[in-house]
C-alpha cells in the first residue's frame, strides 16, 4: 500500500529514490552552470524570450475565447436533445407484440404529444436564457482580459518604489546564495543589475510592458505576471527571491497564496527578501493615497508579514528600513527570511 506522503503530487520529485535524486541533482547542476554561462555571455538575449512570449500570447486563445465556440456548441446540443421524440419503436421479435405496442402507442399518443410539446418549449426557453447569459458573460470575460494588465499596472505608484542597492551590499546572507535568484517587478532592471554585479545568477519579471521597453538587454528580464510566474516554478528551483512591488497591495488571500507557492519553489534554507511599507505610510503623497484606496488589498504591518511568513515555513533573520527610489518617495521596510529545511 502506498502511503499518502509517498504519493503527494507536490513531492513527486522529492519522493524519487535517493540514487536517482542524487544523479539528477548532479546533472541539473551542470545544466544550471551551462545556462549561467550562456546568459552571462549574452548569447541568450532576454528580448528573444520576450518575443517568444509575445508570439504565444498573440496566437493562443484568450481566456473565454474558446468558450465562444464550445459553449455555443454545447448549447446547440442541449437544444437539439430538448426536442422529445414520441415516435416509440413498435417492432418486436415476439409475434403479436408489435400490434400490441402499436395499439398502446396510438392510444397514448395524444397524451405524450401534449407533455412532449411542453417539455420542448421549456428547453427552448431555457436555452434562450442560457444564450443571453453566455453572450453577456463572454463580453465580460473579454473586457476583464483587456483591462487586466492596466488594473495590475495601475496599483503601484512610483512613490512606493524602493532602492535595494545599500541593502544588498549590507546583507551578506543574500550575496552568498548559491543558485538562481528571482526579483519580482524589476522594471527596467536597476535592482537586477546591482545583484548581477555581485556575480549572482539573477533574473527578473515584470508585467508592465512599457517599463520593459527601457530594459537593460544584458539582463534576463521576462514579461510575466507574478501569479503566472510563481505557478510555473519548479519545486526547489530558486535559491532566493526578492519580493517587491504591487504584491503588497493585493488581497490577503493573494498574498498568502503567492507566499505559499514561493515556499515550494525556494530550496530548503533559501532566502526571501520581502520589501514592504507600513499601513501608516504618509498620506501626503497624492498617487499613494489614490493607489491605497483603489487597491484590492491593504498594506500589512511588519507583525502581520512575520506571522504570514512563519505560517508557510519562513523564519525572519533580519529586518530594517529601505530608502525610496526617488526623493519624493516614501521610506519602506524589509524582512529577510530563511526557509526552514
Amino acid at each position, binding site marked *: 500500500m502506498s502511503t499518502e506522503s509517498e*504519493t503527494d*503530487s507536490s513531492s513527486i520529485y522529492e*519522493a524519487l529514490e535517493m540514487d536517482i535524486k542524487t544523479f539528477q541533482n548532479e546533472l*541539473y547542476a551542470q545544466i544550471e552552470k551551462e545556462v549561467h554561462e550562456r546568459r552571462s555571455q549574452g548569447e541568450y538575449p532576454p528580448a*528573444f*524570450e520576450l518575443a517568444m512570449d509575445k*508570439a*504565444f500570447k498573440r496566437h493562443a486563445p484568450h481566456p473565454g475565447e*474558446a468558450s465562444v465556440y464550445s459553449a455555443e456548441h454545447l448549447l446547440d446540443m442541449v437544444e437539439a436533445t430538448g426536442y422529445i421524440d414520441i415516435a416509440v419503436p413498435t417492432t418486436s421479435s415476439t409475434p403479436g407484440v408489435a400490434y400490441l405496442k402499436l395499439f398502446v402507442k396510438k392510444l397514448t399518443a395524444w397524451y405524450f404529444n401534449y407533455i412532449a410539446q411542453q417539455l420542448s418549449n421549456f428547453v427552448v426557453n431555457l436555452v434562450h436564457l442560457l444564450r443571453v447569459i453566455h453572450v453577456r458573460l463572454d463580453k465580460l470575460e473579454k473586457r476583464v482580459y483587456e483591462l487586466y494588465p492596466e488594473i495590475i499596472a495601475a496599483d503601484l505608484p512610483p512613490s512606493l518604489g524602493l532602492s535595494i542597492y545599500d541593502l544588498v551590499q549590507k546583507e551578506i546572507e543574500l550575496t552568498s546564495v548559491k543558485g538562481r535568484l528571482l526579483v519580482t517587478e524589476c522594471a527596467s532592471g536597476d535592482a537586477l543589475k546591482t545583484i548581477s554585479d555581485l556575480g549572482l545568477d539573477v533574473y527578473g519579471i515584470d508585467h508592465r510592458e512599457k517599463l520593459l521597453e527601457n530594459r537593460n538587454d544584458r539582463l534576463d528580464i521576462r514579461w510575466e505576471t507574478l501569479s503566472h510566474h510563481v505557478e510555473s516554478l*519548479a519545486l526547489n528551483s530558486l535559491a532566493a527571491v526578492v519580493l517587491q512591488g504591487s504584491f503588497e497591495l493585493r488581497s490577503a488571500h493573494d498574498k498568502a497564496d503567492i507566499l505559499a507557492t514561493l515556499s515550494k519553489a525556494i530550496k530548503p534554507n533559501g532566502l526571501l527578501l520581502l520589501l514592504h511599507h507600513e499601513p501608516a505610510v504618509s498620506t501626503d503623497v497624492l498617487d499613494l493615497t489614490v493607489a491605497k484606496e483603489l487597491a484590492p488589498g491593504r498594506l500589512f504591518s511588519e507583525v502581520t508579514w512575520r506571522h504570514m511568513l512563519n505560517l508557510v515555513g519562513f523564519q525572519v533573520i533580519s529586518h530594517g528600513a529601505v530608502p525610496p527610489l526617488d526623493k519624493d518617495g516614501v521610506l519602506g521596510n524589509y524582512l529577510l527570511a530563511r526557509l526552514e529545511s
Partner: protein
Amino acid sequence: MDLEIHQFIPSLSLRDAVGQHTLALQQTLLEAGITSIVYADEMKENAKDYAINYRELPRKFSDRRFLIYQGSTDSPMASFLSQRHEPILMNYHNITPAETVIDWDVGTAVALGMAVAEISRFAPHVALAFTVSKFNASDLLRLGYKNIELAAPFIALSETHQREPRSITQGSKWLFVGRVVPNKAQHELIKAFATYKKIYDKKATLQIVGNPAQIKYYEFLQTFAKELEVSDSVEFLGSISDTELAQRYKTSDVFTCTSRHEGFCFPLIEAMRNSLPIVAFASSAVPDTLGKAGALVRDPDPLSFASAVHLVLKDTTLQRQLQNGAVEQLDRYSPTRAKIENLTAINKVVRSEELSAHIETLKNSRA
C-alpha cells in the same frame, strides 16, 4: 467452480496503451488458469474480436467472480458495475486535468471534469485500486480511494534499435511522440527548440509525432512555429504507422518531452528501448518513469531545456550513463515484473492459493 476475473473497459482500441494493457492483463490471467473475458462499451477497429458488450455479463451473482474496471474516462459502465455484488477492482489510467485544456476546448474540459467526478463517485464501490505510477496513486488518494497498490504497466514491445553514443553538435534530430493536446505542451518544446537552434545548432530539426486530437491547438502550433521562424525545421507528422515510428526512433538523436501532465508517459520507455538519450521536463509522473535514463529539467525556462539537450548530445560519457540508467529502468518495467505486480495486487482481493502459487512460479522464473 472456476475462478473468474473479468475486465471492463469503456473503449477498447488495439492501438492505444490502455487497450494493449487490458489485453495483456487478460493474457496474464488466462496463463494463470483463470477465466477472463474483456467487456467493452465501445470497440474500435478490429477490437470486436477481443471483447464483448458489457451488458452480456451474466446477471446471476457468483462468489468466484471478480471484476476489474479500467478507469480512464467517464462511461455508463461505472454505474453498471456499482450495482453489481461481485468485488470490484479499479485499474486507474489517469485523467487529464480539465484546467489544462479549458482555454482551448471547453467541451473537452467539461467531459474531463465529468470523468473525474465519476471516478470519485465510484470509489466506495472499489475494494482495491491499482495503478502504474506514484503520481496516479496521489490522484486516487485525492479522489477518495483508500486501498491503493502500484503495479508496472504492460508495455507492447515494438521493433527497437540499439544506438552507440555519439557526440552531436550540428544537425541534431529531436523527437517527441504523443497526442497533440495542450497538456503535452508541444508549444514549450517549440520554444526550447527555437532557443537551441539560435544558440547551439542552426541545422537542428524537431519531429512532432502524434494524433492531432485538439485541432485548434494543432493549428496554433503550426502558426507559432512559423512566427518563431522555425517552421522549416519542425515536422508535424501526425499519427504514423508502427514501422515509420520505429524508423523515427532509430534515426533520431534525442527524445525531448516538455509535457506538463503524464500519468506514466509510455514514449519514454520506447525511447529507452531504442537507447535514445532523453531530456524531459520534471512534471507529474515523468521523473518516476524516467529514473536515471534521461536529464530532468526543473526550470520551465526554454534556455534550461535547450542547454540540457546540448549537454546530453555533446557528451558521450553522459549518453552511456543514461543508457545504463535505461537498462535499470527497463528492468523495472519488464513484462514478467508487470505480470507479478499486477497479479499480486489483484490477489490482495481475490486471495486465491492457486494464484499465489502462480505468482511464486513467475518470481522463481525471474530469479
